[in-house]
């Protein structure tokens, strides 16, 4: 194979060394004709269950009634959290999907939005703050209900 990628023991040893030195857990090289993948598990942690989670064993703080996104520990949050199109709350307050009760929502699922377009309101300290779309795109998820309390960083919408 071109360049002798496959199976060259010296290459594999070299890659393995890199893997170890750099504390990587996986290296994968692929070209047209071949693929090489090295992986290792980290030395087993002493406290196995603590490996992925904070070590304390307390139960997560229960959320307040009617305050769904409040008090949920980060570990329990949905993977939507890391979605590149995620719009999060820039403040603590109460989120509203429409300008006033009974009126139409700013956006609905599947709607096309322009950059800078108001997508919802957050009321904080009796002030209504317009939350604007950071980019143009399609609203693929609405993660809150109108009137829900939101904390800083709370996931609001996904615009793709």
């Amino acid at each position, binding site marked *: 194979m071109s360049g002798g990628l496959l199976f060259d023991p010296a290459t594999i040893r070299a890659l393995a060394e890199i893997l170890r030195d750099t504390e990587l857990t996986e290296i994968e090289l692929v070209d047209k004709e071949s693929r090489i993948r090295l992986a290792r598990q980290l030395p087993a942690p002493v406290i196995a269950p*603590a490996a992925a989670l*904070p*070590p*304390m064993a*307390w139960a997560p*703080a*229960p*959320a*307040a009634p009617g*305050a769904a996104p*409040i*008090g949920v*520990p*980060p570990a329990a949050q949905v993977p939507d959290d890391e979605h590149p199109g995620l719009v999060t709350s820039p*403040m*603590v*307050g*109460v989120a509203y999907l429409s300008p006033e009760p009974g009126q139409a929502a700013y956006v609905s699922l599947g709607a096309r939005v322009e950059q800078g377009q108001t997508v919802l309101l957050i009321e*904080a*300290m009796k002030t209504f703050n317009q939350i604007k779309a950071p980019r143009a795109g399609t609203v693929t998820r609405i993660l809150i209900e109108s009137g829900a*309390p*939101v*904390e*800083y*960083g*709370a996931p609001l919408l996904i615009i793709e």
Partner: protein
Amino acid sequence: MPLRKVLIANRGEIALRIHRACQEMGIATVAVHSTVDATAMHVRLADESVCIGPPPARDSYLNMAAILSAAAITGADAIHPGYGFLSENADFAEMVEAHQLTFIGPTPGHIRMMGDKIAAKDAMRRLGVPLVPGSLGALATFEEARIVAQEVMYPVLIKAAAGGGGRGMKVARAESELEDAWRLARAEAKAAFGNDEVYLEKYLDRPRHIELQVLADTHGNVVHFGERDCSLQRRHQKLLEEAGSPVLGQADRDALGAQVTRALRELGYRNAGTLEFLWQDGQFAFIEMNTRLQVEHPVTEMVCGIDLVKEQLRVAAGEPLGYDQSDVRFHGHAIECRITAEDPQSFAPSPGRVGTYHAPGGLGVRVDSALYSGYVVPPHYDSLIAKLVVHGGTRAEAIARLRRSLAEMVVDGIATTLPLHRAIVEDAEFQAGDYTIHWLERFVAGRQGG
């Protein structure tokens, strides 16, 4: 009106301290936190938590709007500000009350009065509390400074009216040094605080820092819980505190306490507060009043057998104290060591991941800390990570207990001031209680040199 749910507008050990008091009283707690504190102990243990902003304190723990919004959406009925952050911000206290919430602390007016060093001294002078001899308020001219300096006798200190943390503060040991001190202090005050007003007072060259803990209800009752000796300071940061002071007896305590409680009763003060004094040659001189819970409040709790935070909560709910000064008894001696995430020689901050955390235990040992094994100390906030507090029947027993608990305590992975505390307890002058506010700087310099 009893408190049902308290929002704790702080972080770290003091947020945990307040949470514990609330929980023991059956009051629900709301933790607020920055994004970096999402897994902090005060958040993990609280009944509810709200993320109020990104790591910088100005955007989270100092963000009044976010904190009040958090109180609104969680239905909290009171806010405990802890110490630092917004605890002495009169505007915040005002906003809290404007939102029909209980501020667990004094009135905004008293916070504001004591926040202005000159106004605070004026008030205390009027109320008969002893002060450092000096100018009655800001000095209009250099000539005025010269006259006052002659009256109180050199050495004298020129200090910024708006000052704090040692900035805008200059010593003149003789009249020949006065003009330089005057000019430099005003320049520094202008640069640091945007206000070049200065005042003058007698410079005490070997004072102790002794403070008195007071508590007032909203029914006119005021008691004190004795003094704390906080002379062990480095750059105005307290490192180790004792209750009582090695130099005071019960008669001194009673005399000062009577003056101070009378003054605060007249002032109509409410909730907890601390009057700080310099003490030298048997004389007290008021320097400032802290209108909040102090870091070192546990030493007072240990010798008085009270829970100051529970008392704050009770008083804030409108309850009367239910006891008077004669019911306050003092037992034994208590010492607190502030363990910070700092290099014990250079005092360089040392945030990062804690490996093993092991708290000492046994009789007479109390640890107030939000640490846990694997916790990451963030770089954004105060470096205090644990308070080790010991109580003993006598000061000697407390020191012996402190020595053995310091030896048991383990905080791996980051540099801490544990080695410095271990050195202090071995020192003969410390053991004899023979120190002033300058002692620690010299002790630290000696270690750095050696």
